[in-house]
């Protein structure tokens, strides 16, 4: 293992920690972080303590967890597909989660109680996951599963558009559109408590596939000859991705480009090994999402930009520049 490999994970971990602190320290109301922390630890119900616990902490934690989920599952999907164009959305779970949330909006449940939205998202993701896993259990190959994901995504996209189309008021439609752009604003610790368990389970499942994804570099037959159970590998990657991304979309909406760009960026730094890329890409995803969420709070634009818009605004040009450089190197 070269020197750069050895320092990559600790370095990324440190970066995530610093950005987490930054996310806690930066916000719209001035906050003395040290005093607030003192109040929280002493159990004092002061205003700084409330701002820290109710506003800053959920936002920072969700930023890290959602980013980790997207980066990790992006790397895993690219490894499973052996294709650098795959992203976590490809299995169709994010579309289904978005649809679930939109139904919660549309039906008015979202106004009745605060967690209806993420619960709707989780339900959508769960239905899609059950469908995919049933297909995988019946022995569907990777291509079949991805095609099913594409079909699922189109169906959910069409139903979401239908909901917008039939929306009772332009205001309701606008609310749905804004939510779909992805954001971490105004989330509470309840959101964290709801989504985090699914994400952690998903991370565990996906991180268990490192060896299998390494072996898959040489094709399915060779991986099988090395003792890798292919069907189980598919179930783990797709089930884990569905859990982590479904929960992410349910609480934060659709945040694009993180799952596609981060694995690309970090792949050369781990010697292009898909197994080693998993954790690095998760940490990289957390760092990018936290950074983007800090950036949009620092920008003098109000109401604040949506996180999904910012990640795409940063991600897409960056991605093009990367492709430009790779192209030059290949020549």
């Amino acid at each position: 293992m070269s020197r750069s490999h050895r320092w990559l994970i600790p370095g990324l971990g440190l970066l995530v920690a610093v950005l987490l602190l930054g996310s806690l320290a930066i916000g719209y109301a001035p906050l003395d972080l040290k005093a607030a922390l003192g109040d929280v630890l002493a159990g004092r119900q002061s205003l700084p303590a409330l701002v820290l616990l109710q506003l800053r902490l959920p936002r920072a934690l969700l930023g890290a967890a959602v980013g980790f989920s997207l980066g990790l599952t992006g790397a895993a999907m690219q490894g499973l597909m052996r294709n650098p164009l795959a992203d976590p959305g490809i299995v169709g779970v994010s579309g289904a989660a978005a649809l679930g949330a939109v139904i919660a909006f549309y039906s008015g449940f979202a106004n009745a109680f605060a967690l209806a939205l993420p619960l709707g998202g989780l339900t959508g993701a769960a239905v899609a996951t059950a469908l995919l896993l049933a297909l995988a259990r019946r022995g569907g190959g990777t291509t079949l599963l991805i095609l099913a994901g594409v079909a699922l995504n189109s169906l959910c996209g069409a139903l979401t558009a239908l909901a917008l189309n039939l929306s009772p008021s332009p205001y309701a439609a606008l609310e749905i559109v804004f939510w779909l752009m992805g954001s971490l604003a105004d989330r509470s610790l309840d959101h964290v408590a709801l989504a985090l368990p699914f994400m952690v389970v998903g991370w565990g499942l996906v991180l268990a596939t490192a060896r299998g994804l390494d072996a898959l570099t040489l094709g399915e037959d060779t991986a099988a000859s090395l003792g890798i159970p292919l069907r189980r590998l598919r179930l783990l990657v797709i089930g884990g991705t569905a859990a982590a991304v479904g929960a992410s979309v349910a609480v934060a909406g659709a945040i694009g480009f993180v799952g596609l760009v981060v694995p690309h960026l970090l792949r050369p730094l781990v010697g292009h090994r898909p197994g080693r890329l998993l954790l690095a890409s998760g940490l990289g995803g957390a760092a990018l999402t936290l950074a983007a969420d800090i950036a949009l709070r620092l920008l003098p634009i109000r109401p604040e930009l949506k996180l999904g818009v910012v990640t795409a605004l940063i991600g897409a040009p960056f991605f093009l520049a990367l492709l430009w450089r790779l192209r030059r190197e290949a020549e």
Partner: protein
Amino acid sequence: MIITGQDLRAVRGTRTVLDGVSLEARPGEVLGLLGANGAGKTTLLRLLAGLEPPAGGNVTFDGRAASSIGRAEMGRQLAYLAQGGAVSWPMTVEAVVALGRLPHGDAPTEAAAIARAMAAADTTHLRARPAGSLSGGERMRVLLARALAVEGRALLADEPVAALDPAHQLHTMEVLRAKARDGQTVVVVLHDLTLASRFCHRIAMLSAGRLIAFGTPGAVLTADILAAAYGVTVEAGTRAGETFILPWTRIRTPAHE
């Protein structure tokens, strides 16, 4: 490891691609699988590697079914070298070869086994190169090194010399022969009749999914059998006690069922 196939049948959709094939691969021998394109060589090799259960008949390894041996143990005992050999990510050659040690998970002896495998396949000088920068022949040798790194008791290779220059074709066949001499069971899919004649101990000739001949090269690589299998006439001769065989004219395109 004795690999035995008994009355093997394989189907693809509604098509029977292998039917009634019985053979045995023994330790210390190189068994060549020959036949025209589409005759069922790769399918047979996959069955013998335990990668696919047969639709009929059974495959045993030292008398045991693959399912009773377990995936991880099979991975340690039997190396499979796939045809064509894609490497999806531009990992270094050394990292690719190291994948052969995956079923072992034995860090202390890993480096030595990898170095041995790379030396045997003449790829040591490529060790730091990214896989994407290799030529087709270099990549095939790297993948051979990957299979050698398993250091199991059987090595099953699907057209390992297809992309190689003449010197490396001979070298690869010598490597396979040496593995057999070390006591491994070697099964190799080949198209070159002379290499088959010179380096295989026994040959299984497939035609349209059936085994039409099984025995020593002298018994199998006859003008009649080659005409039946490939639809060609051959010119043959001997040099220092070894036989060379060249396909010469086409009688017809090979049989399809």
